[in-house]
């Protein structure tokens, strides 16, 4: 009788613990957002590379190309890390062999990063332009910025 009581108590404790974990997981808010990345360049932009870091509070779930159709190929990024759900930051790069007249000049969306965020507050996004280049391969000055679209 005593053993049966102990076993019941043990099972009750285990179920109670599992319930707590489930409750905690449900309590941790999660949402999806889209980070639109823009590069502003006075010269036609032929190549770019940037890094987006969510400070451990985001997970990249997908990458979308930019507005300029001359960037025909999908951008370079660590697809394996994204597929594993292990991309808490992302480095994205692309180039176009199009003519300078076809390339974007001024502010243009180069990519959109789809992310899953954790916590009530939006992540502290850190965006860094690694490189930007002209059609002849020269590095050029450019500014990078992002816009956020959120949704549950």
């Amino acid at each position, binding site marked *: 009788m005593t053993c049966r009581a102990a076993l019941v108590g043990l099972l009750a404790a285990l179920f109670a613990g599992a319930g707590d974990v489930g409750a905690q997981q449900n309590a941790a808010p999660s949402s999806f957002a889209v980070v639109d990345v823009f590069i502003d360049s006075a010269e036609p932009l*032929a190549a770019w*590379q940037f890094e987006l*870091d969510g400070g451990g509070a985001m997970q990249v779930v997908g990458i979308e190309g930019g507005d300029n159709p001359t960037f025909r190929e999908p951008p*370079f990024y*660590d697809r394996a890390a994204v597929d594993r759900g292990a991309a808490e*930051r992302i*480095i994205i790069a*692309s*180039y176009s062999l199009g003519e300078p007249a076809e390339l974007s000049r001024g502010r243009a969306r180069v990519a959109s990063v789809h992310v899953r965020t954790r916590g009530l507050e939006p992540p502290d996004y850190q965006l860094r332009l690694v490189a930007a280049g002209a059609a002849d*391969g020269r590095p050029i000055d450019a500014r990078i910025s992002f816009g956020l679209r959120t949704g549950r």
Partner: protein
Amino acid sequence: MDDSDRDPSGLTHDDLPESIVARMRRADRSQAIVDPRTDRAVLDAARAQFAARHGRAAARRARWALPLGAAAAAVLAAWLVVGPFGGVRVPSSDDVDGSGTVDVLDVFALARASARGNVDPRVDELGARIVSLAATRSPR
């Protein structure tokens, strides 16, 4: 008159009073006479002493020269790699444009060369490498 009678000033005994000459001769004899063999022995000993000192100094230099040169070479190499202004230079065959860093501009340079007919299979490979999260560190 022989040479021993000639004074360095050019005067001879005939020009000096005899008493002075006698005193000078006594004084001259009181000085130590350096035998040529003694002179040679002192010279040989001095040479031997300085030769030994030179060897010890050379040995000291040889002992420190190698590690000191290696340390200087390491410091110079680090300075050349890191750069005087803090930028990290990556001496790599992937640095196609010679900028000191490997990024999309190197991939772009390979792609432009491929577009001119020299198809380079490294384009996609290098493109994948520059965005690899495992190969790069977070700046935070």
